């Protein structure tokens, strides 16, 4: 990936961000419904009271001016005040972000732990029953509507079998001081293995629901990449050198097969981060995804704008990382 390509990517970031902020600002501005009305919904606020609140939130100024002010502040990292929490948007997002990131990372872990063995096994035993089973499972994974699958898991494993908690992030008797916001880390840092297990049990169902489609896609990518690699000369040569089957498979073959998988994984992380509001809603997960959906309904413009920009930045950066990883793993492509 030549230097000019890196440059082109970096130039692309601000353009995409500008584009995204124009769209989200326009969308919010054109959306009917006035946040102040919602905040004072059925209370006995007087018109004058509503007007003063509107002034406080800067909603009385024309759209164009508000957009310029928004861009100016955003550049300096100030995303304004969240209407409902009456606290800086940045702070509100920072509180909810770890929950979303932790869920996404565990979901990715689930995806990788499922996809790699399945993909490799299916490639090694091409056209065997395992191969056909894998393609069936991966088709299921991609075709399952997330919200329904989540509900099914709750119904089966939480309500009927009681193996897993129904929702939320951490049960009682397992509270730990907040260090990083990532429960799996905080519980360990607090030396509470029981709390760690309880946090893990809370992560299980949502992570499976979120991770399955990615696992399906990944397994298929690994299977086809692995099948391709196994037919290459260098795998034949490696076997001819008398290397053990395990070394041939997991070092020689897998290392090359993972290259396309890693890029898919990087891109999937972006879409997972941006798309887990459904799973968060179903599992009552206090993440950023659910907060964004609630904020759209409550017309909490600053928070929605900030969150969407955050998603856009992560998405572009992750695509960029996908390219970097592709180059790093693949020596033939000089960085």
């Amino acid at each position: 990936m030549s230097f000019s390509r890196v440059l082109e990517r970096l130039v692309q970031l601000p353009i995409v961000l500008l584009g995204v902020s124009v769209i989200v600002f326009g969308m919010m501005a054109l959306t009917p419904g006035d946040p102040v009305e919602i905040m004072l919904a059925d209370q006995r606020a007087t018109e004058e009271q509503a007007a003063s609140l509107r002034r406080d939130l800067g909603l009385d100024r024309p759209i164009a001016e508000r957009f310029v002010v928004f861009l100016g502040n955003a550049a300096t990292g100030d995303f304004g005040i969240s209407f409902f929490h009456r606290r800086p948007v940045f702070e509100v997002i920072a509180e909810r972000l770890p929950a979303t990131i932790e869920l996404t990372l565990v979901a990715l872990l689930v995806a990788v732990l499922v996809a790699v063995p399945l993909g490799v096994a299916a490639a090694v035993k091409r056209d065997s029953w395992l191969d056909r089973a894998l393609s069936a499972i991966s088709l299921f994974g991609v075709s399952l509507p997330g919200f329904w699958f989540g509900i099914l898991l709750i119904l089966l494993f939480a309500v009927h079998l009681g193996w897993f908690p129904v929702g939320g992030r951490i049960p009682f008797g397992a509270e730990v001081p907040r260090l990083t916001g990532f429960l799996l880390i905080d519980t360990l840092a607090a030396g509470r293995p029981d709390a760690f297990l309880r946090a893990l049990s809370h992560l299980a169902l949502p992570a499976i629901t979120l991770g399955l489609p990615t696992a399906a896609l990944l397994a298929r990518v690994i299977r086809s990449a692995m099948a391709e690699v196994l037919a290459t000369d260098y795998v034949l040569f490696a076997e001819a050198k008398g290397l053990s089957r395990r070394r041939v498979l997991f070092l020689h073959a897998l290392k090359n097969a993972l290259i396309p998988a890693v890029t898919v994984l990087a891109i999937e992380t972006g879409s997972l981060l941006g798309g887990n509001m459904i799973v968060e809603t179903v599992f009552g997960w206090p993440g950023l995804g659910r907060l964004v959906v609630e904020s759209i309904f409550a017309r909490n413009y600053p928070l929605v704008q900030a969150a969407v920009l955050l998603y856009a930045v992560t998405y572009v950066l992750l695509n960029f990382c996908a390219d970097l990883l592709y180059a790093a793993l693949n020596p033939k492509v000089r960085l």
Partner: protein
Amino acid sequence: MSAPLLSVRGLRTVFPTRRGPLAAADGVDFDIAEGEALGVVGESGSGKSVTFLSVLGLVRPPGKVERGEILFGGRDLRHLSPNELRALRGRMVALAMQDALSALNPALTIGTQIVETLRAHAIPGDPRAEAVRLLTRVGIPDAARRLGDYPHQFSGGMRQRAMIAISLAARPRLLVADEPTTALDVTIRAQVLDLLDELRAEQGLAVAMITHDLAVVAERCPRVMVMYAGQVVETGPTAEVIAQPRHPYTRGLMDSLPRLEDPDRPLHAIPGQVPDLATVDAGCRYRNRCALAVAACAEPVALAPAGDARLSRCIRAAEVSP
């Protein structure tokens, strides 16, 4: 002559296809003596590579070795357990391939790919030092520094040498060289072939030189084996076979090659095509293209002696004109 290093009898390797089982190698018999260089000649698809892949036990599923005896150092490789066969590969029988760029793992350094071979066969001594020695021996300058390089950082010739170094790392007794110089340009080709000859002489290494280039065989291999449509059709000392071919196909091969000493001789291509191996019958497989074909050719033809240390699979072997 002591017992041959490798003796293959009645080898039959089959690949199932929609049109029925395809015998890529059908009833192949040959021997390779200790330290000998045997040329294996034939068009692509004649079964030369499949034969030796069968010897190494590396036939990719769904293909499999259906029948035949593969004796190496007195042991039948087909009765060995997968582990025993694996220990033998690289240690006893090694493979060198046509294009080193595709034969060497792009994601691993040359050093790693040598060291792992040494380790796999527990070769004594410090693997890195041995790796440097091997690379230097095959003529790669400043070998120590090059260990950390990746295959794509080597030139064509250098890469081929590195691959040969890797193949011979565990001091095998038989090297199967599958078209080792075809991908190289002429100047480098001679150097690599010289290298192979030196190593052969030095380590008493037997080489099976698989190629479609008769010139290479004529120059480098004392004995030659000609294959056609999955069968061995003629073997014998190279000079004699070239001078006095005992099989019409070998004769046809000679005619389709330009001669240094007779440059303006007209070249004759062999008419017709190789028969479909899935539907071929028991008779001589060359008869549909053979000028000497007679009714009797429809019967199965065995590989019979045709002169001193010479075999031919043709009932009219003697009548083949020089």
